[in-house]
């Protein structure tokens, strides 16, 4: 028997699924006692180069409220040519095309190695992808030039048949017509007026007002031709147009912010696509260089003396525009999601740009959020290029209009999902009343997906304690993901997984060893972050602590009232440490982060896959020295040594930190001397490794090269476990590590406290 480690790895590679528990407690009561819910991280479009899609339609269960897809877990009667649905036990005849089926001639979807299978289906006309650029022109000249360059470059990356459109905005919003010869034509909207989708379409001449029908004729896509053109036809035209783009010409008086009509611009973009290409894959790409300052969706007024809201203001309920703006963008995001269009936000400015208010646009539609200091940085340019990266088949790593449906065997129900999705409000037998995350449905829409988009799915065991599941019974879950591939094909990917039921009373050790602490940490973190969006920070932390304590009480081995006796088994040993770092992470701590930064971090945390999420929770630290090959070291202040170079990856930042001695050597210029070639190589090694990470990571992390005592060293110092601080430095001796000037508790203190609580307070036990 393979270890659980291998089993988990195998499952992840094949199906893109990581469960918190790989053995499922067989009753509701037992499940709740496990503290961490039965849940999984699911990556719907996990890259599977070894999985060629099949070119036919999936076979569905004929029961109207089931419609599960034929899968390897189904019982098949090859003689009678019928199969039994493993979810509703309906017996279904095979369709005529399966007439030749037999034990030796099985279709792929029945083979166990195809627990994940992808179908290419012919449904409706294939529509090209749509890219609508929404560009802020209230930028510094330098930024605008850089942005123009990036946009022009991106045209060459787009699929040639893709439709592109351009909206620019500043004080006014301009929708550029791309088709006309000669004069460059654009439609202009006032930046202060909220318009309905119908008004927008009328004003763009896309709808004949009420002449042909009661609500006006819905427009045929060709009517929108003026604004959305195949890139191969307007490449030159658009390149010129972008080239001629000027900064917003309206004067900005002293002491004022430029008037930026982001809200109306987005409203127009959404309205345009809504009217012309509903339910078609489309990306609205918003490039902003500052906060919206007028009209609907305004985040801050144009008076410079009134700064943009901070966490402090928000907590004091002092953020004037927050609620209104958030409501506006939420409505917009929901509309966009309903039409299957995703919205990306590329916000580059030194100050905040209103991501807090606008985040839902991307969160609801699966769009990207990229935050940088300037468009004139490699962080932006490379990230932006990353959007258009291609997989091994030469297809874009993006998919559109994804709909994920989850079917469960009858002992399970779906509580909800957390990730870049919106609920489709599909009530069914699989839906639990207990909501976790975006619940109340077993279908979610993800307007835009990448191979790394990952949802946290939360389940509930509904089997009652007194109705035991027969020994050896297995529960099953089917994930059906329909989406539009970037080559415009419609595809359906079906993943069917199964796990054994286990009786928690007799098999608690088995269940314990089936615990996937990494997945559990991420899943609990997602729950925490989801709560943090609506609750006060301390409440969330308290909730997390309680869960952790309960988990330790459940699975720890200890003598009551004896903290020193506390032990955790190997499968849980890292979990408290993850929680320690999670508590300190920017996802739950807003101190030192602007509201925009918090939104940005949380946005990425709730969509990345397990590995990346773990890096975010607990950054990775590598140490480089002359003593041996690079090695991962503890994320601890004790790892900061004078003769080491450290490379820290927090997902968002990549920090290279030269220890004190190394820095002195570098200053002395030893690396230039031929006799110290090895030092040069040592310096280079972390940079090479960093480059590897930079190349693959999306979004591009901020690359920081610093040294002992450098101002940027704070990025490292704020992450490491403060095992040595000014409070305990002398007690621990001076030789190892660097003290961190903080009052935060160290992991050691945290653990001690945890142990104490776990062994003592039984009152908290259910």
């Amino acid at each position, binding site marked *: 028997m393979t270890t659980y480690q291998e089993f988990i790895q195998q499952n992840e590679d094949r199906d893109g699924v990581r469960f918190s528990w790989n053995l499922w407690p067989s009753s509701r009561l037992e499940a709740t006692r496990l503290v961490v819910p039965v849940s999984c991280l699911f990556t719907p479009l996990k890259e599977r180069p070894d999985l060629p899609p099949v070119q036919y339609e999936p076979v569905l269960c004929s029961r109207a409220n089931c419609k599960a897809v034929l899968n390897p877990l189904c019982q098949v009667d090859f003689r009678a040519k019928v199969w039994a649905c493993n979810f509703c036990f309906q017996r279904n005849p095979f369709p005529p095309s399966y007439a030749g089926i037999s034990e030796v001639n099985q279709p792929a979807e029945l083979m166990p190695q195809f627990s994940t299978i992808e179908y290419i289906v012919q449904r409706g006309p294939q529509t090209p992808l749509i890219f609508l650029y929404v560009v802020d022109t209230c930028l510094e000249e330098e930024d605008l030039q850089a942005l123009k360059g990036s946009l022009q470059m991106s045209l060459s990356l787009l699929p040639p048949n893709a439709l592109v459109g351009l909206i620019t905005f500043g004080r006014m919003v301009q929708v550029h017509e791309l088709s006309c010869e*000669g*004069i460059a034509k654009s*439609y*202009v909207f006032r930046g202060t007026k909220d318009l309905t989708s119908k008004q927008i379409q009328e004003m763009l001449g896309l709808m004949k007002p009420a002449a042909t029908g009661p609500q006006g004729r819905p427009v045929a896509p060709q009517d929108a031709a003026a604004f959305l053109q195949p890139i191969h036809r307007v490449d030159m035209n658009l390149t010129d147009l972008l080239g001629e783009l000027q900064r917003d*010409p309206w004067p900005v008086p002293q002491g004022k912010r430029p008037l930026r009509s982001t809200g109306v611009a987005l409203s127009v973009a959404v309205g345009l696509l809504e009217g012309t290409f509903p339910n078609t894959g489309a990306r609205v790409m918003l490039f902003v260089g500052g906060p919206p300052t007028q009209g609907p969706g305004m985040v801050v007024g144009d008076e410079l003396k009134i700064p943009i809201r901070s966490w402090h203001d928000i907590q004091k309920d002092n953020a004037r525009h927050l609620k209104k703006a958030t409501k506006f963008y939420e409505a917009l995001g929901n509309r966009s999601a309903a039409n299957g269009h995703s919205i990306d936000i590329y916000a580059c400015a030194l100050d905040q740009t209103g991501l807090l208010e606008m985040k839902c646009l991307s969160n609801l539609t699966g769009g990207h959020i990229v935050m940088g200091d300037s468009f004139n940085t490699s962080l932006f340019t490379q990230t932006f290029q990353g959007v258009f990266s291609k997989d091994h088949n030469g297809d874009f790593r993006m998919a559109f209009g994804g709909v994920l449906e989850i079917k469960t065997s009858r002992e399970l129900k779906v509580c909800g999902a957390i990730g870049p999705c919106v609920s489709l409000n599909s009530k069914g037998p699989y839906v639990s009343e207990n909501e976790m995350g975006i619940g109340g449905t077993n279908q979610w829409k993800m307007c835009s997906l990448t191979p790394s988009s990952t949802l946290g799915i939360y389940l509930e065991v509904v089997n009652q304690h007194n109705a035991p599941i027969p020994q050896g019974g297995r529960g099953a879950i089917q994930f059906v993901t329909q989406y539009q591939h970037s080559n415009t094909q419609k595809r359906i990917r079906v993943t069917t997984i199964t796990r054994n039921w286990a009786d928690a009373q007799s098999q608690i050790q088995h269940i314990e060893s089936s615990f996937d602490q990494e997945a559990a940490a991420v899943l609990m973190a997602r729950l925490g972050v989801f709560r943090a969006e609506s609750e006060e920070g301390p409440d969330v932390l308290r909730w997390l602590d309680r869960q952790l304590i309960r988990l330790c009480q459940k699975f720890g081995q200890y003598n009551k009232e004896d903290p020193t006796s506390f032990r955790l088994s190997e499968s849980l040993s890292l979990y408290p440490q993850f929680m320690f770092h999670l508590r300190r992470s920017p996802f739950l701590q807003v101190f030192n982060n602007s509201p925009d930064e918090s939104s940005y971090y949380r946005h990425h945390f709730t969509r990345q896959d397990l590995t990346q999420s773990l890096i975010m929770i607990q950054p990775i630290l590598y140490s480089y020295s002359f003593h041996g090959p690079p090695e991962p070291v503890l994320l601890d202040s004790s790892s900061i040594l004078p003769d080491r170079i450290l490379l820290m990856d927090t997902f968002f930042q990549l920090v290279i930190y030269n220890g004190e001695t190394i820095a002195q050597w570098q200053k002395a210029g030893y690396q230039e001397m031929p006799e110290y070639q090895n030092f040069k190589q040592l310096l280079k090694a972390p940079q090479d490794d960093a480059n590897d990470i930079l190349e693959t990571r999306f979004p591009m992390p901020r690359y920081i090269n610093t040294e002992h005592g450098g101002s940027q060293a704070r990025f490292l110092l704020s992450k490491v476990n403060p095992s040595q601080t000014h409070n305990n430095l002398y007690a621990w001796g001076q030789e190892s590590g660097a003290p961190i000037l903080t009052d935060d508790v160290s992991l050691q203190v945290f653990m001690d406290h945890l142990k104490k609580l776990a062994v003592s307070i039984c009152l908290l036990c259910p």
Partner: protein
Amino acid sequence: MSQQGYVAAPPYSQAPPGMGGYQVGYAAGPAQPLYGHLGGAPHPFSAPAAGTHTSTKSAQVVVWNKHSFVFCFLRNIFNSSCLALPGQFGGMMPGPQAGMQGGFPGAMAGPPQKKLDPDAIPSTTQVIEDDKAKNGGQVYCTNIRGQVPPLVTTDFTVQDQGNASPRFIRCTTYTLPCTAELAKQCQVPLAAVVKPLANLPKNEAPLYAVNHGETGPIRCNRCKAYMCPYMQFIDGGRRYQCTFCNCVNEVPVFYFQHLDHMGRRVDFYERPELSLGSYEFVATLDYCKNNKPPNPPAFIFMIDVSYNNIKSGLVKLICDELKTLLEKLPREEGADCSAVKVGFVTYDKVLHFYNVKSALAQPQMMVVSDTTEMFVPLLDGFLVSYQDSKPVICNLLDQIPTMFADTAESETVFAPVIQAGVEAFKAAECSGKLFIFQSLMPTAEAPGKLKNRDDKKLVNTDKEKTLFQPQKGVYEQLCKDCVVQGCCVDLFLFPNQYLDLATMADVPSHTGGSVYKYNNFQMETDGEHFLADLRKSVQKHIGFDAIMRVRTSTGFRATDFFGAIHMNNTTDVEMAAVDCDKAVTVEFKHDDALSEESGALIQCALLYTNISGQRRLRVHNLSLNCSSQLSELYKSCETDSLINFFAKSAYRAILNQPLKNVREILVNQTAHMLACYRKNCASPSAASQLILPDAMKVFPVYMNSLMKTAPLVGSTELSTDDRAHQRLAVMAMGVEDTQLLLYPRLIPLHNMDVDSEVAPAPVRCSEERLTDSGLFLLENGHSMFLWIGQAASPDLIQGIFNLPSLAHFQGLMSTLPDVDNPLSKKVRAIIRDLQNKRPNSMKLQIVRQKDKPEMLFRQLLVEDKGLHGGASYVDFLCYVHREIRQLLT
């Protein structure tokens, strides 16, 4: 309309009763004003009973004396049927048939009667010729108070010696009655027609600009009158007394100058403001909006590109013309190029703005579809200097016609177009002028959408006035916005049908703009005509963001103003723009008695932004005599100004009153004025004699003509839009224009001396003056006809038209062929000369005698019976005479 509602309406001319308004109570007539009576029982023109009429035979006697033109006629043309005449004036006009048949049924049907010799009644052409002979080519010095200037039709040179040139100000009378009583008695309106930016001929010096530096113009502390020749320096020149309000002011130190032995300042001749009637001050920042110097004005061309205009080729015509026209934008004397910025907008249901920044390779078009809340989508690059952006603009003008070549849009907006202009000026912080070219009634869903409310059934009813009233709402506010921003609107209309001109022209007529109208526009026949108007309109001398104030010496004051103006209060005349052809007529009323000794002073100050963006103050001063003798007043009356005032006040009155009332009032007042003269000034004579003051002897013909103009004649034959158009056009006219409009020139061309330098003398506007073999040119400042008699000699036809005979004449010819003979050259020279002189271009229409279009021509023969109703000159005179006699008894 209920009587109450009517009573509430503002009285005609806003005159308090008894202050020279229209009151019937001169003689024993009813005491209440006529116009207050519409709601009640029909109030017919008080027709004398047939029996009171003396009809005896007599020869006509025409007597000239010094001041009066006396002629009397005792004749038998007043037969019984003539008694229907009063009804014709006061009541309903007879239908067109009756009018067309040529007048009085009695005169036609009865046995041949001895007709009144038309030559015997006062002739306008004669009066004009006499004045020409007397004053033509002379120098007119303005050094005498209350001096009556030559007629507007006379060419003379003005030398400013302390009073404003008559080109700037003309008065109805140059001698004011000393008391309100007298004014009320004579009923002669006291008014001045001010054309503040009038063009001066080349041989007259342009106005001096006085610059007093940072202190600005010197003004009286109390009444704020500007320094002028009438100010009395006293106390050795240290102080001066304001002659307007008698306040004594200190002379500023920098302005001090010693007085000579005459009590005149030593620098009298060095300072225009001390020696001249008209001059300008350079305004300081205090006179500018927001205390900031204004930006140069801008012209925005706004072209309707809906189906009609594209199809007719108009859009292309405009675009082609602009390319050359923009080279000739008006500029300051001596400037290299014009400071005026230009911008372009095209529109149908939506507006297209163009970015024509010089840095661009191609113009950019910006579409604004949000017509409910108009805004300007761009700042930089919309209003540009033509010189800088010439290639881009030419590129744009080339592209516009092709860009919309396939348009099928048949609806347009209008109010948002003007709004866009206002917003553009607001954004650019300048004033300027919009040139709007529109062919349709704005029916698209947007603010200012109009609907067809033309209803011929209203003609000749109490509700007829609604046809002239603009629709309320959007346009009212727009007028205000325009005036505040200094946005003048010139509207060029190319209608094929009714387009509610009364409403569409509301903004132009309150912002100092003009409305041009080309019915059923056709490229071949109207193209040149329209372009000529456009050129004139663009190149005109014009001032923007103007505010005018008329100050008077104590005893009287300006009470009412007529023109293309906007009034926010009772004293400040606001004009978004004022050009060289726009005149404001100002009515004066007495406050107190005036003294014969000190006379009366008028100072008219206009603050405006000139074409290069400088703020200027133009001051016109005029001193008038005062007299307690009515004869003095009648002696210094000026008919042309009087009729200008009457035309404007009547045209304003028809907004509020039935036409019938207005016509009655006009006739009554005419009769009153003349009767008062007869009673007080003329030497006793037989009652049957009609005695007219010399200065007013042709007044009746003008008055009659005025009453026959389209707005005042209630005929369903006339288009409502045309009537509204004429009404508004007249409101802004100066004295020359109304004179010409009401008494067109009829010039015989068939027997002129082709070698002579001058054009032949016009003949009287009557059919009788036409000869079958003749060729006549008729013009009234708006239309021009070339009339060819049936029996015109083939030589004449060949010579001018290059056609063998009249029969070969086809279609509508709008220009004369270039034929190389002295006659043709002379005729074309005359036409060209007239076209140049008039503010508007006139479309030349060639009509043959007895052809259908001759009707249009005959309408302008104002001494004849009107085609759509209205009496002939002779009949009117008889009627007025009867009225006078009625009043005298």
